């Protein structure tokens, strides 16, 4: 066998969906339940083969509702667990997302977005689920949602999603889109140990001593005990006390809802992931995320080369929305353009965050095709009064 490569780096040419499967296994995934849906299906296909080889479990459920329910059940036994879907399936999962939030069960949900509403454009690109990720399930709650624009970052963000789900005992949503999911791109696979993994925090309370599954430590974290272990306790989607037993006492309900929101909102900084390009002197700031950020990056580099003071803020953490970061990075901008493939979901958050919301504009596309650098350039020309 001839070896000509000088490096031992594991470089591959993968689809985004394949990256998700590989990164999830790297992060410790041991259970996947899902239902076929374009454009996410390759994640399930790859894991149906990969998980049994490493002692993990894969199951194709009867629908997306059951998929996330099975994931939550598996997580309660101590397994890192995940599902993957697209918009219509994500809609069906909202019920169980609420359960995972209320019962504080770690899990990861990958939503490879397509065009919508309804069945929409199954094989086309869109970013229409940003608000569904935030508010899709009923009731007051916090949520963690991440995204990325390239496969190298995607790998890292998938691992982040698993780590965050354990730290916060929360479902974490990963918002991909059809372009990212299906595009093939070079990726250097991180070596084992290169990215730190967060394992489940389990209780040190010995058997026979009362364990309070829903009594937060001083740092807000709740150590878990696996089903099948020495602590038998109750888990419910009802408002519950520190035993996990249903309660309708106003003080219990008030404390629980505040805990569920504050545990994420108060530690939002630790969840912040983003990239920035040339923001130090930018008087035009592009704000984008996911595959749309690729076009934003392209037009930014293009205009920089002719002297335009333009920069890009690429968000990887969408929820909790990084208000303070956006406010600071947009402070000196003459105008801000939010680039996204929907009718304007993150642009609302940007307007709410910045000091001059009237200077925030939207460059978007909702026809199922990827937004292009020219689309963004045209918006810039209109803002500057030059016409398209």
């Amino acid at each position, binding site marked *: 066998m001839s070896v000509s490569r000088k490096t031992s780096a594991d470089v591959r040419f993968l689809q985004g969906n394949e990256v998700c499967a590989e990164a999830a296994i790297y992060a410790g995934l*041991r*259970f996947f*339940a899902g239902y076929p849906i374009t454009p996410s299906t390759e994640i399930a296909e790859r894991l149906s083969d990969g998980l*049994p*080889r*490493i*002692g993990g*479990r894969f*199951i194709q*459920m*009867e*629908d997306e*509702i*059951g*998929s996330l*329910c*099975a*994931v*939550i*059940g*598996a*997580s*309660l*036994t*101590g*397994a890192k*667990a995940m599902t993957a879907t697209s918009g219509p399936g994500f809609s069906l999962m909202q*019920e*169980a997302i609420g*359960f995972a939030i209320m019962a504080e069960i770690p899990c990861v949900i990958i939503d490879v977005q397509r065009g919508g509403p309804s069945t929409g454009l199954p094989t086309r690109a869109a970013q229409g689920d940003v608000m569904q990720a935030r508010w899709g399930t009923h009731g007051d709650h916090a949520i963690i949602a991440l995204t990325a624009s390239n496969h190298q970052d995607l790998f890292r963000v998938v691992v982040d999603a698993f780590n965050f789900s354990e730290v916060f005992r929360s479902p974490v949503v990963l918002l991909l889109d059809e372009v990212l999911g299906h595009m093939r791109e070079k990726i250097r696979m991180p070596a084992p140990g290169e990215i730190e993994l967060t394992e489940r925090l389990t209780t040190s309370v010995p058997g026979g001593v009362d364990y309070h599954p829903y009594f937060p430590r001083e740092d807000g974290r709740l150590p878990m005990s696996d*089903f*099948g*272990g*020495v602590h*038998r*306790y*109750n*888990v*419910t*989607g*009802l408002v519950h006390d520190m*035993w996990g*037993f*249903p309660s309708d006492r106003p003080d219990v309900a008030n404390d629980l809802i505040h805990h569920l929101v504050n545990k994420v909102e108060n530690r939002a900084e630790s969840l912040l992931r983003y990239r920035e390009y040339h923001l130090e002197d930018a008087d035009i700031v592009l704000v984008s995320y996911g595959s749309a950020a690729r076009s934003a990056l392209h037009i930014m580099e293009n205009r920089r080369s002719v002297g335009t003071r333009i920069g890009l803020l690429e968000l990887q953490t969408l929820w909790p929305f990084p208000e303070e970061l956006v406010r600071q990075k947009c402070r000196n901008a003459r105008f801000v353009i939010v680039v996204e493939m929907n009718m304007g979901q993150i642009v609302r958050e940007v307007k709410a965050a910045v000091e001059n919301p009237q200077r925030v504009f939207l460059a978007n596309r909702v026809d199922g095709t990827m937004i292009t650098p020219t689309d963004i350039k045209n918006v810039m020309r209109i803002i500057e009064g030059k016409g398209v």
Partner: protein
Amino acid sequence: MPVTGFLRTRFMPHIWCPGCGHGIVLGALLRAVERMELDRNNVVMVSGIGCSSRIEGYADFHTLHTLHGRALAFATGVKLARPELTILVPMGDGDALAIGGNHFIHAARRNIDLTAIIMNNQIYGMTGGQSSPMTGCGEYATTAPSGNLESPFDAVELARAAGATFVARSTAYHAQELSRILERAIKHKGFSVVEVLSQCPTYYGRKNGKGDAVEMMKWYRDNTVSASAAEDGEGKTRVGVFLDIDKPEYTASYAAKAAGAVRVER
């Protein structure tokens, strides 16, 4: 251990109405677990939503009170992740067969080793007496004020057709037989279904002139006939074990398949 040792008395009094049959089902179930000498740390009870599904809060196992209709889907995840655990899945009739009907037939089709207990009171009790998929044709409910137009499922036939490998029916009147049936169902390797007629004097009984709890239980006594009895049982409900067969169980098949999967470097 006395059967009361399996109860979480800390969380009592329970929520059930006087005369409700669900407590009898809980008692029969706990006596079965006691006879089997199961380690409580190896038992998981997964329930849905409704009067019946509050049963798990009072039992000292690992307990998971889930979403309406979804108990079997959650239970599938627990079982597949930890096949050595014994999983009990008590559900209501609307819970298991209306909103949860899809999960029910697919759990049966997979023949996954869960014990599904359908506590059938023929009504939605917790929401105040609406018709369920087990309410009889012509019977009354708050959403069937002039009589129910629909026909109920036969849960036994449904379970059998969907692929369950242990299927039985009992009633809250037949508490001792019920307990023995539940023991067999738990021991059975595969998807077991036990339908238990459980009286709801508060809603179903009152709406349909069935009398109080005692009268309803007498009705169960007088209007049931053994599944294996030769008599034709005209107009009566058959109770007992209808099916008890061996077929490959899902998690066992999974383990066998996974053992053959060789790790290959891609």
